[in-house]
């Protein structure tokens, strides 16, 4: 029985790395912003996960980011990591980061110019294809919130 449980947990440990569980238990960046430049609601229609992303933009730079996610550990952790990493970077860098996260989920070669930091812990999600959209919810929602060519300002 213990053995059986261990085997199951070996697989799960890839998905639920300690960093991921930590972000899930204590999500960062939930405080509402007093004057957001933009806010977007994200929604995963197949499972119902909901996310609220708000940001302030100063010139070309994302200054503050609020992320509030109602969802599973993967979507909450991914959003929490996003809230930790994104502020202080300019929009072009954030776009590169979004592409890097998407690439990681598709199993692409990592872009050496992008530091994924805690996000590396989400690499295990790839082995659970149905959960990939959980990991990407925060990032695709942020993409919509960013000003510029492709997204609505």
């Amino acid at each position: 029985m213990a053995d059986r449980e261990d085997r199951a947990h070996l697989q799960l440990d890839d998905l639920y790395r300690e960093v991921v569980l930590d972000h899930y238990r204590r999500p960062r960046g939930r405080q509402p912003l007093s004057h957001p430049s933009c806010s977007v609601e994200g929604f995963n229609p197949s499972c119902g996960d909901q996310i609220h992303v708000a940001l302030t933009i100063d010139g070309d730079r994302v200054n503050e980011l609020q992320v509030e996610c109602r969802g599973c550990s993967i979507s909450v952790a991914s959003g929490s990591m996003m809230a930790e990493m994104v502020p202080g970077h300019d929009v072009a860098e954030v776009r590169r980061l979004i592409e890097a996260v998407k690439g990681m989920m598709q199993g692409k070669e990592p872009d050496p110019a992008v530091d994924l930091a805690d996000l590396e812990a989400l690499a295990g999600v790839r082995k659970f294809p149905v959960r990939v959209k959980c990991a990407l919810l925060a990032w695709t929602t942020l993409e919509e919130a960013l000003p510029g060519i492709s997204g609505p300002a």
Partner: protein
Amino acid sequence: MASSSPAGSTKPPSQGPLGLATHPLRPSDIRSDSVEGARSPLDVAAIRRDFPILSRRVHGHRLVYLDNAATTQKPLVVLERLNHYYRSTNANIHRGIHRLAEEATALYEETREHTARFLAATDPRGVVFTSGATGALNLLASSWGHWLRPGDEILLTEMEHHSNLVPWFLVARERGAQVRHIPVTEDGRLDLTRLGELLTERTRIVSLTQVSNVLGTINPIRAIADAAHAVGALVSVDAAQGAPHHAIDVQALGCDALSFSAHKVLGPTGVGVLWVKPDLLERMEPYQGGGEMIREVQMDGATWAEIPHRFEAGTPNIAGVVALGPALDYVERLGYDAIGRHGEAIITYALDRLRGLGGLRILGPTDPTERSGAIAFADPVVHPHDLSTVLDQEGVAIRAGHHCAQPLHRRYGLVATARASFYIYNDRDDVDALVAAIESARRYFG
């Protein structure tokens, strides 16, 4: 429904469920099985042998299949019928004048008659084959929708599956009608105290589920149908979750139309049934146009075929319909009395064990006799998706999400729940495996 199992004693053993064919249910077979407390009247071990998929392994574990509200597994007799049909009979129906076409047509029409008996309907012309319960409800909504005028009302309930909501939204928008709903109570019942004010002379259609796919609640269809008829409304019953667990008698339910999916009653995917009172079906507008549904076509118009063919445009899922026959045979042989008592025993046991875990929010009526099939629950710490992933690693298949019932989840302030749903091949061991896996998930996330 004992009267509707004529196949029981006359068919050769190879046609029946293998676990039962050589020894039809006798009182001596009735044993406690492994469901404690209440006795299960089914020989679950024998039933399990009829379902090849139940012997496969998932992530190194015995498969514990608890997603029956999504779809049930198929007994060998259904798989064999599909195989046999394609190997020896395959032809298009109602068209060719050749041996295969005659045989295929006969098998297809025999299943229509069988389905009518299954529903205790007197006239097989009331049975329309569709692609599923969703196909049936869309047909019905679209066709009944022609009779709606601005200001008319359609009454649904807060516990409906999206497929008994959205088709009505579409026709309501098109016809300028209003959709209203019967709310649910905190403990998962329809709030019938509101029925009096909701049913008015403006109410043209009432469509509701017999059994909730989330709460498991069994609704008092007859009482609601009588009240609806008293104001002149038509009544449609979504029996997608009811048909697997309860003998359906359209006369006793008092409805005008009823839908279900074959794949939730041991049959193949891609087949649904819409039953409508024949005199009503006769007056309904066709839904889709095409081959098979016409009497005569000119370059500028057409006249319609007789019912039910008027509502079956194009080549249907013939093999699937034919294989619905042995699926219905299978449940009829077990008998809905035994299926119902088995279901109640397992729901009773599962509710007890899940409550015993402490801290779970379990939706639906607390009294197991008021529910069947599914138990949806939410853990305060482990999100349903995470629970589902952890359970899957232990071979336990449940469903996580909103189960196509978003308004209902919103009603309870939830985005998603985990749902375990049971059928004839599940036993106490399956419930124990579920509970052990939940405990293990809690340790993991705790």
